[in-house]
């Protein structure tokens, strides 16, 4: 059984191809979306999902969210006393999703299709694949998120479609893909994106705008940085959600016994996000330019990703395309559903017999080279593209390079990905060295073949003309530098972490939520919520299922009444 997994910045989801249709699998709380959050308790207990997200307010120093933004970097996040790599944290989310799938399907999934932002670079893809392995999954394929959404949208019916544009603004990344569907072939024509633009940035912009208004005395300055950031981020998130349904919202932070608030209007929010909204245009324009389509030729504009719910983003999209976007797909579910379709395709499900998906390589791949300038000098570090961006994949291309010095002994090819003319502006993926026979400059040379497969895995072959010597490099990044045993060791270490039993998930999540709401109140109300929490904890200690269920229902009602806003 292959499952499809949308491993998002904010939320993740797992799905499966079943009964001729893609199905989402609910988590232990009965929800389709699991927050991509991990928190570690003082006793070493690990929380994943909703409970972990709520603990961000109460235990910011031991909770991580949005770690997808650091995938493919060496950055480590400190939770409690331990440093975690973004892959490890992602692996914990993946494992929690697999637990849900196991409970739902009756057997544990072993293979998966995982989605990645189209504009994820090679390193970020490798890190994602690696996270899957750490979670005990064989990653059968990485599929681009907008491509997955296009599959879900395109397969809603049997008809051919005019070229449509998938506008995927998630929590941390932004992708645009232009897709055609005909004769059952869903074909991506061009993708572009910004892997550093998402809902989180709108929170940051809003928080930066509101901070002087809500805290003119600078009291936040005295707080611990991580706590302050968590607080501002959450206040922004809450206000932003409120602004999705109303014209005004309250931006609130609680410092000690004081609750500081300021009102924010939709216009203020829009002004604060002006730069971000402007950055949405660029990838769209680039994708259109790359496939030589005009806005007028596009059929639907398909919105994907939770951040497309923001009215200011919808307004910007409507302006950009001069029409209203299509709301036929569920912005939070489309990617996971598409992943399930890809899983069905890989297991050659008969219902998908006539369906094919064709994607592109969204970025340029090449090597560094030397050019002679007008003064006869050498200019080093010039990027020489071998696979141009938006080339259909799989693809295999050869380029020819010659020596630049007399009696040069070897050629070193540094492999890069990116769009800058100078390699220094691009991402280094690896290097490969070949010996060449000693000849005058330019008389020895090598063919460099780049092969890029459907999953986005790059293989480089270098063949020396004169000797026929061939070297091959599979750019596997960090994952390859670890031996199988090391991977197994890390997997075991993650497996040994303590978790609450699955049947406790609801109670754990509710307790975390109550504690988070406690932080939002001051004075008498706070003391009251504290009392409710004590009561619920007492019920949990009794281990009497009936009493626990009753207390849980009561606490839920109380919390909803207190916050007066289901959005909290």
């Amino acid at each position, binding site marked *: 059984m292959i499952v499809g997994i949308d491993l998002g910045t904010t939320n993740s989801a797992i799905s499966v191809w079943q009964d001729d249709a893609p199905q989402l699998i609910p988590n232990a709380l009965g929800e389709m979306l699991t927050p991509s959050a991990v928190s570690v308790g003082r006793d070493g207990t690990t929380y994943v999902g909703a409970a972990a997200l709520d603990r961000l307010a109460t235990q910011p120093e031991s909770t991580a969210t949005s770690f997808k933004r650091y995938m493919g970097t060496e950055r480590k996040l400190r939770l409690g006393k331990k440093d975690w790599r973004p892959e490890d944290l992602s692996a914990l989310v993946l494992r929690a999703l697999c637990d849900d799938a196991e409970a739902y399907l009756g057997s544990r999934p072993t293979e998966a299709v995982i989605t990645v932002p189209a504009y994820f670079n090679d390193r970020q893809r490798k890190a994602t694949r690696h996270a899957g392995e750490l979670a005990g999954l064989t990653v059968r394929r990485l599929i681009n998120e907008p491509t997955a959404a296009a599959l879900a949208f395109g397969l809603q019916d049997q008809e051919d479609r005019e070229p449509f544009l998938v506008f995927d603004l998630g929590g941390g990344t932004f992708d645009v893909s232009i897709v055609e569907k005909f004769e059952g*072939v869903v074909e991506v024509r061009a993708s572009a994106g910004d892997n550093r633009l998402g809902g989180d940035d709108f929170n940051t912009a809003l928080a930066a705008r509101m901070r002087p208004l809500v805290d003119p005395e600078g009291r936040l300055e005295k707080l611990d940085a991580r706590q302050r950031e968590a607080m501002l981020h959450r206040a922004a998130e809450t206000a932003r959600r409120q602004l999705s349904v109303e014209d005004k919202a309250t931006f609130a932070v609680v410092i000690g016994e004081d609750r500081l608030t300021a009102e924010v209007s939709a216009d203020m929010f829009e002004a604060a996000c002006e730069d971000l909204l402007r950055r949405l245009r*660029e990838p769209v324009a680039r994708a259109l330019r790359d496939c030589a389509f005009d806005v007028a030729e596009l059929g639907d504009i398909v919105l994907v990703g939770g951040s497309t719910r923001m009215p200011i983003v919808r307004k910007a999209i409507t302006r950009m395309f001069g029409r209203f976007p299509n709301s036929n797909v569920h912005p939070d579910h489309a990617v996971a559903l598409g992943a399930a379709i890809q899983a069905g395709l890989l297991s050659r499900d008969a219902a998908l017999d006539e369906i094919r998906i064709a994607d592109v390589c969204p970025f*340029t791949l090449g090597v560094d080279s030397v050019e002679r300038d*007008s003064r006869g000098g050498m200019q080093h570090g010039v*990027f020489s593209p071998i696979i141009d961006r938006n080339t259909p994949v799989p693809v295999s291309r050869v380029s020819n390079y010659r020596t630049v010095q007399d009696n040069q002994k070897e050629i070193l090819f540094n492999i890069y990905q990116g769009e*800058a003319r100078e390699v220094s502006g691009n991402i280094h993926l690896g290097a490969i060295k070949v010996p060449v026979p000693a000849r005058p400059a330019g008389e020895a040379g090598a063919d460099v073949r780049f092969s890029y497969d459907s999953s986005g895995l790059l293989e480089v072959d270098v063949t020396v003309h004169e000797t026929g010597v061939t070297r091959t490099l599979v750019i596997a990044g960090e994952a390859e530098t670890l031996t199988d045993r090391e991977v197994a060791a890390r997997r075991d270490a993650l497996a040994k972490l303590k978790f609450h039993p699955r049947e406790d998930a609801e109670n754990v999540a509710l307790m975390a939520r109550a504690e988070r709401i406690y932080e939002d109140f001051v004075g008498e109300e706070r003391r009251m919520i504290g009392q409710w929490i004590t009561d619920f904890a007492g019920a949990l200690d009794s281990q009497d299922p009936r009493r626990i269920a009753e207390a849980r229902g009561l606490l839920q009602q109380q919390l909803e009444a207190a916050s007066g806003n289901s959005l909290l």
Partner: protein
Amino acid sequence: MTPSAALRHLGLRAGADVPAIRKAYAALYKAMDPDADPEGYARLRQARDIALRAAKVAAAPPPQQPVEAADVPEETAAHPAEPWLYGAPTLAHPQAADLPLLNAGAVPHAEPAVLAPQPIHAPATPAAALRAIAGPPLIESAQPLRADVGYLAHPDGDLARLLHDPEAELGPLTDEQDAFAQRCLRVLLAEAATADLTRHARIEEWLADLLAETWPRSAPLLRPSAEAFGWENERGQITERPSIAWLNARLRGLRFQDKVTEPDHQLHKAWTELTRPGSATVIDRFRVKRAEINQLLEGVRKHFPELENHFPRERVVSWDDGAAARGQGFGVFRIFGTGFTFNSGYAISVVVGLQILMAVLRGIAPDPVAPPANVFGPPAALASPDPQFITIRDRALAEVFGQGTTIERLREQQASLASDFEDRIRASRREGRSEAGVMADVLEYVRLRAQLDGRNAQGPILRKTVALRLAMLDAASKQGPDLCMRVLKMEKMQDLVVPDEIRTRERALAAEMVEKGLLAAPKPPSVTSARIPGALIGKVITVTGLPEKRVRDAISNSGSPSDQCKVTRALLRAALDGQGGAEGTALLRVL
């Protein structure tokens, strides 16, 4: 791959329509495993794309006659009049009538200028200049009142008029003009921010063109524009648009200027010294280190040539003289110090596509004097096999494309060229030319086409094409300046004796272009004007050893044929050695 080969690849017959092509493609795609055969997949995609393109062209209405199309100003052709087009007359610029009307397809002037100079600061392409003045309708005349920017009826036209300065006599904007220009700009940027993508792109392009064309008067508007459109994000990208690249370079110059005018900048003293009026005194020379002056001048010339505007020429020359007096090598100053009189800006703009244009007109466009095309005889496919014709044709093929080229192969690879090739042979024979004469005619024909198409090609082909032209000019100059002039204008070149080595290169290039499908029916050149950077002029002066005035005359298409020949060759050589980039490429395309 030709369209017919593409259709064969898809298992279709000629005339297949778009749905049929898609269906055939989908069936073949589903039957294969692209991961196992990526090259097969690439071929299939290519066949599909070529077949689709051909089918779409076939389905589209027939194109207009080239000459008619050329008469229509570019802008109107690309963007049909929109309902809210506001009155162009109100925008008519007093200077507009004086600007030479040289749009891409126009019949050239009676005296075809080899290198027609443009007035200082004039736009690179006059057509574009008129566009900037007459302006595309960027802003509706019924622009609603904006509280933040105030009401402006025609911010685009007003801005263009304000910035335009074809005679280069106005200098920088006054404070008042600047305030007004900034207001116009704010309206335009506000409009762009809320416009749809198409319109946003139009405003962006229009503004980029205007700023580039009216530089340096437009300098105060560059920063806000670049910020609004995110131009700097594009900097250094492979796909950086040429106009944006040019503006980004100016932007870096402005940044440098900001820094160097701060007292703590290490070259601040040198900057202050060089920006003073009058000659440097002995005391001045003691006050500032020569090395710093040197470093600043070299840096400015290399990276931000336009900043040299800030240095009065007299000042620069006085430092130069001081150096010469001490016997130090400051030759570079002399060249630039005087070369500077070319203009007060960073480069000169030239329109040098004319001789190419002539060739287009002679080669393809219906020539009013030439007999109509059907006089050439029946179409190639219907021609009765004439053994003598076939012999000559096959020899000509070998002569032009190298041994082993057959007409069948040529038809397969470049059908239109094959039929034109045969038509030329027939026409020459009908004129009673000898076999050698026929060979010369057909060779010249292909040579013209290769030169034209090579200019529209990319990278290596473009360079090879230009290098070949240079080689031919070199060969011609050995046979006298008059022949060199004829080769320059690409007419009556039959007398030219081309050395075997160059012929071999020419043959190889022709074969390569056929192989790549580049020798299609020639189109008017994609670029008809380019800027010649000051550094190149300097090189030309050094290489030719001619005084600056004669170089300038030669570039202006006056002066003796021998000078023109020398200067053009030196310029070609310098351009070929140049660093490339968008500007270098544009220059190669026009020279």
